[in-house]
């Protein structure tokens, strides 16, 4: 037997084909169109932004990212005589505010997701899930107004508390007279906005933790918390990171809420309790109304940078999810 088999030539792998049915072809066409259209729309946006922003980007060069001037001078005829555009301060503000938001929102969301899935009685779970889903659908201006009317007046107290215990870090330096319109306030507002997203994603992934492993843990004498640590969190880790990145993306792109609570100041500021900041999206909304055609091009360029930043964050998220996903399963 074996000698015959050895003499026989090893064939090349066959090409596997199948004759698709008509209905299958139609369905394939529909989903392909759907799938490609989002890609095309995304591409068109990128091209549009690049096209409109290109002139300014070429004019400013790398300074567009590193400087923080935003000025334009026109003569009486409306021609631009001098212009400086740089979004460093807004980029820093975008990153700072959204990081504050995620740092606050992530633990809150993970613990609420765990509570909802494993501790809350059924009736309470139903109510809370409805409330959280509703929060996700709230218009962001409402969060902005809440931040403006409710959070700002009381934030000084919180800021002092933070400063008292973490004041040795430069991030937390306190400047009492301007604290109310600081990136910290914006971060808190953003955090509340993205908590529903991260909670929903986490809840979904936690609820998919394999039941047989959960039972295995309990059968080994695990308490509920020990079971969660051993089974649910390893299973959900990559999904939670994905949810956090989704939240980060939303926080980075948020316009109205940040615009309502923040002082838009063109000055690079990494101190979260100092009332100086802004983000790229709020810059656009601040300037868009009365911008000259040339300034609008600058705003488009800023939009392009924000777009690319979001892409980079999503790519990073994907990378993290992939690398942790393997060990988690």
């Amino acid at each position: 037997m074996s000698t015959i088999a050895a003499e026989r030539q090893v064939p090349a792998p066959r090409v596997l084909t199948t004759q698709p049915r008509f209905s299958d072809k139609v369905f394939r066409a529909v989903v392909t169109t759907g799938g490609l259209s989002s890609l095309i729309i995304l591409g068109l946006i990128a091209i549009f932004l690049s096209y409109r922003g290109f002139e300014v980007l070429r004019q400013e060069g790398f300074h567009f990212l590193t400087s923080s001037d935003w000025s334009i001078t026109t003569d009486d005829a409306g021609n631009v005589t001098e212009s400086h555009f740089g979004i460093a301060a807004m980029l820093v503000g975008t990153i700072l505010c959204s990081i504050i938001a995620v740092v606050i929102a992530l633990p809150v969301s993970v613990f609420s997701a765990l509570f909802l899935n494993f501790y809350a009685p059924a009736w309470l779970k139903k109510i809370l899930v409805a409330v959280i889903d509703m929060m996700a659908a709230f218009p962001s201006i409402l969060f902005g107004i809440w931040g403006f009317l409710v959070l700002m007046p009381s934030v000084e107290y919180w800021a002092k508390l933070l400063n008292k215990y973490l004041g040795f870090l430069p991030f937390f330096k306190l400047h009492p007279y301007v604290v109310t319109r600081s990136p910290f306030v914006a971060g808190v507002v953003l955090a509340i906005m993205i908590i529903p997203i991260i909670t929903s994603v986490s809840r979904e992934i936690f609820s998919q933790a394999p039941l047989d492993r959960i039972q295995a843990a309990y059968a080994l004498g695990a308490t509920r918390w020990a079971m969660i640590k051993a089974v649910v969190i390893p299973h959900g880790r990559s999904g939670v990171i994905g949810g956090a990145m989704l939240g980060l993306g939303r926080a980075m792109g948020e316009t109205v809420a940040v615009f309502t609570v923040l002082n838009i100041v063109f000055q690079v500021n990494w101190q979260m309790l100092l009332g100086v900041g802004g983000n790229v999206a709020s810059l656009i909304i601040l300037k868009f109304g009365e911008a000259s055609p040339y300034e609008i091009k600058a705003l488009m360029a800023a939009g392009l940078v924000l777009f690319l930043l979001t892409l980079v964050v999503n790519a990073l998220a994907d990378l993290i999810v992939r690398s942790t996903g393997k060990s988690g399963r």
Partner: protein
Amino acid sequence: METTTKPSSLADVANAHVQKAPGTRALGTGLETRGIHAWFGKNHVLSDINLDFAAGTVTALIGPSGCGKSTFIRTINRMHEFIPGAAMAGEVLLDGRDVYAAGTDVTKIRLQIGMVFQKPNPFPSMTIGENVLSGLKLSQQKVSNKDELLEECLERAGLWNEVKDRLGAHGGSLSGGQQQRLCIARALAVRPQVLLMDEPCSALDPGSTLRIEETIRHLSDTMTIIIVTHNMQQAARVSDYTAFFLSDGGPGQMIEASPTNEIFSRPRDKRTENYVTGRFG
């Protein structure tokens, strides 16, 4: 199925191993169930089960599908109560103490009464070594001689030689049979008095099955084992006692419990005889 197996041949198999006198070197004094009933919602699935499991013996639970064997062993280690709407009545006495008594710490009960499931379920995020010791971590126990314990448990589960060089590999990288022995090793590491096994070999090949049966015979020196099986040969090979469960449309009942060689050679109940001779079920 064993439709051609005559009762006498199963009895021969059962007679081939020495039936143990209970309570030799085993931990504890055994397990008793008193008047166990179980419900899923309004569905009464188990009625009045009274069984004694002497320390250091192996008892096989047999019976047709859906007669409540799994439900019964899950009432023993209080896993039954995880299912929403599940209820039970009766007492489970471990060393004479009711595991359902008020003020009992359920997690302690589950440490004393270990369980091996039908489908191997190692923790995928842990290595082989971590899996074996996971029970200690989960129940927040500390041991000084981790490596010794690891080797001992894997040895007793019949897996040591196959995995000793790759303890750091993931639990999921083992074959199904190896994974099941890993789960047995994991259950042993917390040193249970009683080990419940719900069809532990039903997903395995004959070779792995034999290894696990050997393991069960060894383990029964030091612990009380209750094994659910659909394989009559297996019941005859590994168990000292056999209990036959049956549901005749209503809740499952325990029809007959006897020494294994007796139940296969001269069953007292006609229904038992029909079942073990393969005439139904």
